[in-house]
Every structure is written in C-alpha cells, then in structure tokens.
C-alpha cells in the first residue's frame, strides 16, 4: 500500500457521519457572501443595496488573475454591502442577501442527466479553463486556491498527470467520502475535464483505504475510463497535503519553496473541485453550494449537508439537533488544520469542508510541560524539519536561525504538536516564525 515516506501521524479517525447520506440543507433567511472566499485578491462587489438577484447571479467579480468571482446561492434582494466576521476571524467585506423564494438563473441546467466529454467533443482545453474561471471554482479542500490558476501552468513547466485528492485525511470529516459515494459518475467526468484542460493522459484518484466502499465504487465506475486510475493509500495524516499526496502517488517530492507541484509535473485537485468543475462546465452551474460535514462527539445527528454558500453555520447546527450544552470550541474545518470560530454567524463559504463541535473537555489544551527532547516531533514532521528547534528559536525571535532551518517549508499540518508528549504549543510558535520570515523574505525581494 502506497503512502508518503517522511513523518506523519495517525490521529483517531472519528468519522461519525460516514454512513449518513448527503442531506440538502434548507434555505437560509439571509445569506452572507464574504468577499474573501479564496486565496488571492478579494472579489469586487457588482451589486448594490436593493438589487434583485437569482440563484446563480453574479454578485462580485474577480479582481485580477489570482482571484475568483462570487455568485449568489439564493434568490432575493441585496440587503446591504457591509462586513462580517468570517471563518478567518477577521471582519471582511460581505454582501448580505435577504432570501425570497428559490428562483434560479435560466442558463443553469438543473436536470440530473449525465453529460460526458464524448457528448461535448467541441470543448477545447481553453474553453474548459475559461468556463472554470467564470464559474468561480476554487480548491474545495480548504485551501481555496482559484482552480483556473492551477490549470494554467506557468511558462517553462508542463503538466504530466492529474492527481485527484480524495484522501480526506482530516479526522471527523466525511464530505468528500459521501460525495464520492453519491456522485461518482459526475466526479469522473470532472476528472476527465481537468485532464483535458491541462492536456495530460494520466489521472489518479487517491483514496485512503479507510473508505473501502468509495474505493470499490470508484474503481467500478472508472473501468470506463482507461486513463484514470484509482489509487488506494495507507491511512496517514497529512496525506491530503498536496506535497505528501504527490509523494505518495507518483513517488516524487516537490522541491523546497518557492517550487510548486507543477515543477514535478503534477496538478492536484480536490475531489470536490472535480465535481464543481463538472457542474460548471457541463451544467453551466457556477459554484454556489458545497458539501459540508457538521459533526462532533456531542452533536445529536452528525450530518453531511449540501449547503448553499452564505448559509450561517448556526442554521446547519440547528438542523443537526442544536448546539450541545457543553460546547467549548467550534471549528471551521477539521481538527488538525481548521480554524476555531468565534461565533456561529459565520457563513458557509467555498472552502468550508466541515464544522466540528468540541465539548469543553476536548477543547482545552493540556498543560504545557518542559521539552524532554524526545525527538518525536522530528519523527512526525512530514517535511523533515525540526519543530522543537523552530518553535524555540521562533519564541526567542531568532529569525535568522529559523530561516536557516527551512521554516518556510513548514506546511502547518500540526503533526508535531499532535505528537508532543509535553503538550507544547509548537505550531503556535512556528507560525509566528514562519510569518515573520516570509515577511522578511518579501521585503528582501522587493528591494
């Protein structure tokens, strides 16, 4: 069984909602669209207060190449263009839409007939990328990097294969798992489209072997596509990290930053992105809804929702049986890399893969003890770094030392802190070091 070689940990999986089918979430009363739903420049609003919008109406356009447009997921009236505290914890510009009915733009194909690439032979690689860009598709795994950017390799590089990330290595989350079980055909067409967009003939769908049902189903369906291979992987975190996934599937390691996966010829896309690409290209449906797992040990009914973007998290929690009494922490995303939310008014955005509710006891970190230099963090680091050293040097503000020890390679996966017997907040310190060093490097390059 394939996996990546360096480091890695195995957190308790806790996939509580794996057996529950995707449920369509009810429409919110008011949907809120943050302008920061992707990496890159924020989208620019094109609607103003009082405008009537339908499902699929453009709300904000992309600002620059590394950016993505935002579409309305509901029909109704624009209430205001203001700001809201989104999942990042910052107050950011957002468009508020009061929901009235559920009227869709006519251009969207709402039928469920499967359209494959052979039905649309006239599509060229440029058409596909243009369509993806127009639909505002971004990486759905959580990083939210605009999809079309990855599908436009920079000059001097050539894509050799497409890897679809369906490992879902974060504990608790089951959104991708369920999506594969329910939309396997559509996903495979999406993979086909992505492969056509970057002109490659080899595609891999990587799935961790804690999802045997998904592996079986995808293999069966993929038999029709001889150039797509389903690759089962050994369960290990952080296999869903782009670099680890490439290492696991094709055995090549992406060089240290600023190199990106395309330098080893790989284009990695999330399985959710593949589905979104299918809908955008074949059904003319912009990205305005996604699958999100709402889970937690004290949640009554952990559920996978197909939720419209802009739905407040509180509504999804209510549909799962309400917020448990002893809630201590609410996390947007998975427990290893998600962000703790400050309140539940945060809306679902393009990158929301999960909502994890932890009780008071789980939520608290253990008491920090002195470092016993056990080297378990060194063994767990998937990037071959020395977390103990980086954390200590960062806390002492020794930026030169942390830069010399390759802190910018850190992918912030949290394996070191997860494994630390002394409960040390290694990643807290490493993050401050990394952000400072990145700023120093930017300043140097600007000179």
């Amino acid at each position: 069984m394939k996996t990546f070689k360096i480091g890695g940990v195995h957190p308790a999986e806790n996939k509580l909602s794996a057996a529950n089918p995707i449920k369509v979430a009810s429409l919110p009363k008011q949907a809120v669209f943050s302008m920061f739903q992707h990496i890159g420049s924020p989208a620019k609003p094109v609607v103003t207060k009082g405008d009537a919008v339908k499902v699929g109406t453009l709300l904000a356009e992309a600002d620059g190449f590394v950016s993505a447009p935002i579409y309305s997921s509901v029909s109704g009236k624009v209430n205001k263009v203001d700001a809201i505290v989104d999942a990042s914890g910052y107050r950011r510009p957002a468009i508020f839409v009061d929901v009235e009915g559920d009227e869709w733009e006519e251009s969207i194909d709402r039928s469920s007939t499967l359209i494959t690439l052979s039905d649309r032979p006239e599509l060229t690689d440029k058409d596909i990328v243009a369509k993806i860009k127009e639909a505002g598709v971004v990486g759905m795994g959580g990083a939210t990097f605009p999809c079309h950017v990855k599908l436009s390799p920079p000059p001097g590089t050539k894509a050799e294969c497409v890897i679809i990330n369906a490992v879902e290595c974060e504990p608790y989350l089951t959104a991708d798992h369920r999506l594969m079980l329910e939309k396997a055909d559509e996903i495979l067409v999406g993979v086909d489209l992505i492969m056509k967009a970057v002109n490659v003939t080899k595609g891999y769908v990587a799935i961790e072997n804690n999802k045997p049902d998904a592996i079986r189903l995808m293999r069966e369906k993929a038999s029709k596509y001889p150039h797509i291979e389903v690759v089962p992987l050994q369960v290990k975190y952080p296999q869903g990290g782009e670099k680890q996934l490439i290492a696991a599937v094709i055995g090549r390691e992406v060089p240290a930053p600023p190199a990106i996966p395309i330098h080893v010829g790989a284009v990695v896309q999330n399985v959710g992105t593949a589905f979104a690409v299918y809908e955008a290209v074949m059904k003319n449906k912009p990205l305005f809804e996604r699958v999100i797992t709402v889970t937690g040990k004290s949640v009554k009914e952990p559920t996978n929702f197909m939720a419209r973007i802009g739905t407040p998290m509180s509504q999804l929690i209510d549909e799962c049986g309400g917020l448990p009494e002893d809630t201590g922490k609410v996390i947007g995303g998975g427990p290893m890399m998600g962000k703790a939310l400050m309140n539940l008014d945060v809306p679902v955005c393009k990158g929301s893969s999960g909502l994890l509710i932890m009780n008071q006891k789980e939520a608290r970190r253990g008491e920090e003890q002195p470092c016993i230099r056990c080297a378990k963090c060194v063994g767990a680091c998937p990037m071959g770094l020395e977390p103990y050293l980086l954390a200590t040097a960062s806390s002492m503000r020794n930026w030169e030392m942390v830069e010399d020890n390759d802190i910018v390679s850190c992918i912030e996966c949290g394996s070191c802190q997860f494994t630390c017997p002394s409960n040390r907040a290694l990643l807290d310190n490493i993050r401050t070091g990394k952000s400072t060093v990145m700023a120093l490097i930017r300043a140097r390059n600007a000179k």
Partner: protein
Amino acid sequence: MANKFIISLSPHVHGNDSVQRNMYGVCIALVPALICSLYYFGIGAAIVLATSVLACVFFEWAINKFILRNDKVTITDGSAILTGLLLGFNLPSNLPIWIIFIGALVAIGVGKMTFGGLGCNPFNPALVGRVFLLISFPVQMTSWPVAGQWMAYTDAETAATPLAIMKKAITGDGVEALSELPSSFDLLVGAHGGCLGEVSAIALLIGLAYMLWTRIITWHIPVSLLGTVVVLSGLLHLSNPIYSSPEQVLMTGGLLLGACFMATDYVTSPMTPKGQLIYGASIGLLTVVIRTFGAYPEGMSFAILIMNAFTPLINTYCKPKRFGEVIKK
C-alpha cells in the same frame, strides 16, 4: 452570547501522549530486570533500589521546594523515579545506604536540577551519580556480591565479575583466564556478579522490546550501539583470542543496560535519526576501546557521558533529510 467559545490555533486534537506515559513506560520496561535483580541479590537489591528511588524523588522535591522555591510539583512526572531506578541498577547490591544518598544527591542535584530540571540536563543524571560514586568510592563500588545470596546486604560475599576476568585475560593471564567466565546461559539469565540491573541480558532485552513496541524509543541508538560493539569485539576476538568473543562482550557488564536504557535517554541523546546512529556507534566504539585498552574494566558509563557532551554538536550538524527533491541546475 450564552457561552464564550475557546479559540486557539490548530491542531485542535492531541495524540494523548504525555511525559508521564513515556517515563512510566520506561519504568515498566525495567520491571523484568528489577525482578531478576531481586531474584539474584535478594534483600540487598531491595534495599539499594528502594533507597535510590526514594532519595532521588526526595531530593527533587526538596530542591524544588526549598532552593528553587518553585511550587510546581515535578516529582509526579516520573523522571525522578526513573533516575532513581537507573541509578540503583548501576550500583552493587552491598552498597551502604549513605553512599546511595550521596549518589542520589549528585544525580538529581548536580546532574539535573542545576541545569534547570527536566529536559535541560546535558548529561544523563543517573550516570553522573554513578560515575561520581565510582570515582569517590572505588572500593565499595567495585566489590560485587556473588549472585544468589538472598538474605545478605553489606555482609555479602563478593567475587570477581565476568568483566574483571575478561580484563585479566587481556592484561596478562591470557586465554586460560577466560575459562573462569560463567557459561553463556548464566550470562543470559543473569546468574553472575555485577551491578543490580545489568546482570540479566534476557530481562533487559525484554524491556527493550517493550519500549520499541510501545514506540517510547526508536531502534536507532540501541541497534547502532550494539552493532558497533559486536563488529569491533568480533574483529578483536578474531585477531587474538585473549579478547573475549562478541556474545560474551555483549552480555557482560552494563552494556545492554546502557544501550537500552541509558544511551536512549531522551534528553541527552541527539534528535535526528542520523544523529542517533552516529551517537550510538560512537558509544559502542568508545566502550570497546575503554574496555580493551583502558584502566577500567567497564567503559559504558564513561562512553555515554562523553557522547552526551557531543550531543549538541551532533544536533547542530545532523539535520533530518528535508522533504523535496534538489532542483538540478
């Protein structure tokens, strides 16, 4: 809002590993050796071990409380108990209580707390205590009771240990002296003289297996250390039979105890796999050199302490292999 949420940076889950789990894990791994030592040295072993553990815990508590004036209780983390156990294992079973007290004071006071307590000591505290005693009280520290005297303590009958016999063979008596060595089976189970914890090779290996199985330690240090010793002593034995054979070298003295429990001490060993291999191999080399050519019959403690001093240097130069191919230019 009804209740305030806790906010913190990811990761939000922890692997539930703890300092205690690791420290007590090593203590559990020492249990087979403990049973063997009690079996062979009886009441003497019990007195020495109990004194050593209690004295170490007491000194850590007292130094924290009265000298550092630190209210934090650190004795529950298991590290003082472990130091006490290891110190006891490195002493002969007929050592008077007052000497053990001095050893514990040096181990915890000088070896550990002076540097800032757990995680800060450059040298293995138990070995600091043992070597201090070895140099200060050479007579008491090098008279080992014969195994099997259940009710004897300071009055136990003593005899030469296998290591002394091996040394004698090298220094003049020749191959004939080696015939006095106990049989390989006795060496394996521990029916011979020596320090408390080091006699039974099989018990120590069981402990090592347990630590590897529960992932308290990795294989790098013990394997590289023992491997180096086997290769070097094998070469010496082939060149001249007055040097005892590798399996005798392996099972005598503190070699296994040191390789499994002292050299692998977290705090004083290098952080990277490559560094650990270098560290282990160097200890093996030094041990063989001291045993064969040095004045002392046993070289393990000195070898480990010397390499402890090199650990920071090894950490500086042995970096783990970073993820990522090197870009060809």
